[in-house]
């Protein structure tokens, strides 16, 4: 057939822009445009800080965890061990891998490196795998502050108590009437990975939940 596209590799990563003038918007840009930095402080206190760490590279990875070639290949490319225990994640600061399911992981890499990462992964691993760039479809927000545990309790039925959910744990669960991948970082704060189309709703929800403690929403560093 004549129409076959030149690149046989089935990459669908097209997010790298070639021109710096191209404007790029994180999922929360609209919300932040309306509310950025708004401190709903109660007597000056800020119990909850919501910070978007947008525009990172997000890749969905599927494959067989029993295959050593697969696990070793991923580790070699990312520099992070593929987490095999349910509900855990591994990170080296730049790259993180979250367990999503028995054959499914989320990779978060520095923004702009998702294309390179995908290509490198496709070179390192083979067989029945899937790598899908979903960078545009989600964003990461960090929740910190004294009230964060209460705000999570308001939002999700999952038990985020430190006895049950320590640093290194992650979980995909319901958050308000949407879903999120929630993980706990070593500094005690929580990262949420949420879907783009639900971002405004969830930001409104979190702000509303944090109102009684005083809260601030802002853009983090890229």
């Amino acid at each position, binding site marked *: 057939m004549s129409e076959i596209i030149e690149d046989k590799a089935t990459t669908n990563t*097209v997010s790298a822009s070639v021109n710096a003038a191209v404007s790029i918007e994180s999922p929360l840009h609209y919300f932040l445009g309306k509310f950025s930095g708004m401190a709903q402080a109660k007597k000056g206190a800020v119990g909850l800080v919501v910070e978007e760490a947008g525009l990172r590279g997000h890749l969905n990875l599927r494959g067989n965890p029993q295959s050593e070639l697969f696990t070793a290949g991923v580790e070699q490319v990312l520099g992070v061990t593929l987490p095999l225990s349910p509900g855990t994640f591994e990170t080296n600061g730049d790259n993180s891998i979250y367990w999503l399911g028995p054959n499914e992981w989320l990779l978060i890499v520095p923004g702009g490196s998702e294309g390179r990462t995908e290509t490198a992964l496709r070179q390192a691993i083979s067989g029945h795998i899937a790598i899908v760039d979903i960078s545009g479809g989600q964003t990461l927000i960090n929740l910190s502050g004294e009230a964060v545990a209460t705000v999570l309790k308001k939002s999700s039925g999952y038990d985020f108590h430190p006895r049950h959910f320590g640093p290194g744990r992650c979980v995909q669960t319901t958050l308000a009437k949407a879903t999120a991948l929630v993980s706990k970082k070593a500094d005690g704060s929580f990262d949420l990975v949420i879907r783009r189309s639900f971002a405004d709703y969830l930001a409104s929800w979190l702000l509303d939940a944090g109102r009684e403690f005083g809260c601030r929403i802002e853009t983090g560093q890229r």
Partner: protein
Amino acid sequence: MLTRRIDRGADNGKPIYFRFNGKRYQGRQGDTLAAALLANGVDIVGRSFKYGRPRGIVGHGAEEPNAIVQISHGSQTVPNLRATQVELYEGLEANSVSGWPSVDFDIKGSLGLLGGLMPPGFYYKTFMGSKKIWEFSEPWIRKAAGLGRAPVEADPDVYDKLNQHCDVLVVGAGPAGLMAALEAARTGARVIIADEQNEFGGSLLAATQTLDGKPCREWVSQTITELSNFNNVELLPRSTVFGYYDHNFLAILERRTDHLGPVATTGVRQRLHRVRARQVVLATGAIERPLVFANNDVPGVMLASSVSTYVNRYGVAPGNKLVLFTTNDGAYQTAIDWHSAGREVVAVVDTRHNPKGEWVDYARKLGIDILDGYGVIEARGGKRVKAALVAPLNREGSAVTGPPQTLSCDLLASSGGWSPAIHLSSHTGAKPVWSDDVVGFLPGESKQKERSAGAANGTYSLLGCLQEGARAGAEAAQQAGFGTDTSQLPLPKFTELQEQPQQALFLVPHSKRTSRAPKQFVDFQLDVTAAGIELAAREGYESVEHVKRYTAMGFGTDQGKLGNINGMAILSKALGQGIPETGTTIFRPSYTPTTFGAIAGRDVKELFDPERYTAMHRWHVENGAAFENVGQWKRPWYFPKPGETMHDAVNRECLAVRNSVGILDASTLGKIDIQGPDAAEFITRIYTNAYLKLAPGKCRYGVMLKEDGMIFDDGVTACLGENHYLMFTTTGGAAGVLAWLELWQQTEWPELEVYFTSVTDHWTTATVTGPNARKVIEKVCQDVDLSNDSFKFMDWRDGTVADVKARIFRISFTGELSFEVNVPAHYGRYIWEKLIEAGREFDITPYGTETMHVLRAEKGFIIVGQDTDGSMTPQDMNMDWVVGKKKAFSFIGKRSLERSDTVRENRKQFVGLKPLNEKEVLPEGAQIVNDPNQAIPMDMQGHVTSSYYSANLGHSFALAVVKGGLNRMGEVVHCPLADGRNIAAEIVSSVFYDPKGDRQNV
């Protein structure tokens, strides 16, 4: 007359002013509204439901049936609160919910005669001579019923929820609950202890006992301090555990600001705690049972324990001269408390003959008169009790054995023993068990991970409660994985009097038989009497459920907390059987009424349901789009220019697309990335047509059926490369289709190697469509050969659009030359604006879903869910061409297409309709008949699924499903409308525009 306040010196709370039925009163800090009303000598707080009889305060907590009040006014009014549970605050306004014209003088009540005409079930027996009579009577019946008034303004308050997890939940913070919580906390278990009252302590708050030589209250506050010091314990006062659901899920309503009054309501008014508890201790206490005697509803007749509570806890003496009527030792406490408060105890009337024991001796020692073997058979008095009529009873308490005598009094307290508060255990489905020893129902065998302790378990001695609580706490913690199951804490030291057995007595005999005696009330709120229950039984309503429903017993806001056991006992006697044979009580949530707003939580108003936005949403808002709700998505419906109606805007948008170029935000379509060696095989099994030969760079339209053969979704699937596909779904179908694919792969064909990933949110889609579409794309995309020869209809290409790597699909939902530009959503708005910029010279027109609908309808393209309804096959939709009959695998739904009903000739089929009057637009949903003049019921042939005016065609048109429609081209059918019009239309092909499909191929 003595004042109703007992001076407690330094413990007297500060004065608080409030209003009741318009009159200003003074209460004290710490009072409930009921306590303050009693202190002010307010006897009548309401009128009874059916007979309008004056009613006073009976109890002191959740059991109160009479003192139902409306608090506050305007948007913050709350109907139907119990005065016994309303904490007093400055400026509180309360009103009775019954009584007309006022509670002190009530018309219904003064017509005593009516009582006789209103036995249980009277309304089933009358008002039905004709339909008219009932239609006339019902509004009056409704008006007479009901308690408080619903607010008429939106609720200004905020409610929220906390999802809690704990190892041990202790319900009730009386002696048993406090011990249980302490024991469990000590093991390190996560503990929550909740109590409905404003302070912890339960019965200890009104007890005169000393523990370790100190007043009870001191032991309570010491224990609370100890509990608060654990960081693994959460204390929830003012928190009612109102429901116990499956898998140890319990719901708690915490009242956070109600006690401060509406002015103070700045935070969360009420909070719902949704608790998953590993183990539960139910230390919910017990509710005292009143005795049923004639006129036992006269104000001034109260529960014995309530009298004690008002005296000891609130410093209020609700009268001067007390007659205490009891069947048990425990109630003697009330006479003793009254005596200690310096008031007159006229007599203790004890139904037992020669009661002996420590309590009786103690009372005698204090000089209290005891009439044993007697019963109060009737209360005397109108608006306040004036006397008790007492008479000797036989040993069984079943008959009056001598002439009655009158004891003058203004307060008549009664105790028929206690009913354990087994409500929560009953919610779990545990069947309550009758105990002759306790004279009450005990919690049944546990169905969940719970145990009861203390009075809730029928254990009434303080020592027993403390011991049982401690044991339960330790056991619960141990079963949740903490500590050992033996209690470790020392119990306080104290002495208590030992109780002798009580007498099981419910209905006190009268010298007249029940049907003729003055009313003996069982359920105060709903005016259910002993005679009513006996009558129900006589009429054949023998099951306890029948009796409850026929008499309405237990259906009040107190849910029969005082009356149900008495009622069951009276029924048992009427039927000549025991209480266990008569039945058990089945309680359902809520334990006490629970605010709707709190159950709804924060998921109201703008947070009621997520609003989903595309990456271009801000642009749409800024450019004046009118939005349509499509599922949770907000989609631009049309883009009106100043002064335009919807009709104008849609016509303009439609013409622009057909004549030049338009642009649509199509980002909401579901998109699923499919990878794996068996991807093509899998898709071929799911869709009706074949995908095995679809080459990379190509797209194909498919229809998905449920296994019953009915259309479920449709969309285009593109082959991205070897073993790699991208499937588009309908906007509404995205999540359902992904689950559907996963279902078949994971459950039926795990051997097929294929992975699915949702990329709906990743890609933003801008559809550029119209004869000038190519010219627009050419301006921003240089690295793709856009010519028709090399980039054909139903192809896709990767390229760069305005410096962003994009994927372009040449697929069309308008029938025009179309390019669907997909970019990662971060670039969505940027690309959208760039495309509009590029299209400016062609007057590129943004359009919304309405124009999209019109344009696709002109082409006869279906919308699943609008043109189909779950009962349409591809053949019905004239889409036989999409069904691959030669596929090796019997695709999902195929077999169902061959059933006798699905191959039927005259099924409804998808056709076009052209109204004979070209300007008349058929309403969508109009029904189609052959003959509009036929008699009703008419023989309906089908209905209009889509209908529009087409600016391009210059006439109106519609899509419809019509019985056998595909063979009826040219026939005229009719749509008789509700407004009397009849619109005639000709059956035509469903493709109105460019039937050969040339325009999309240019």
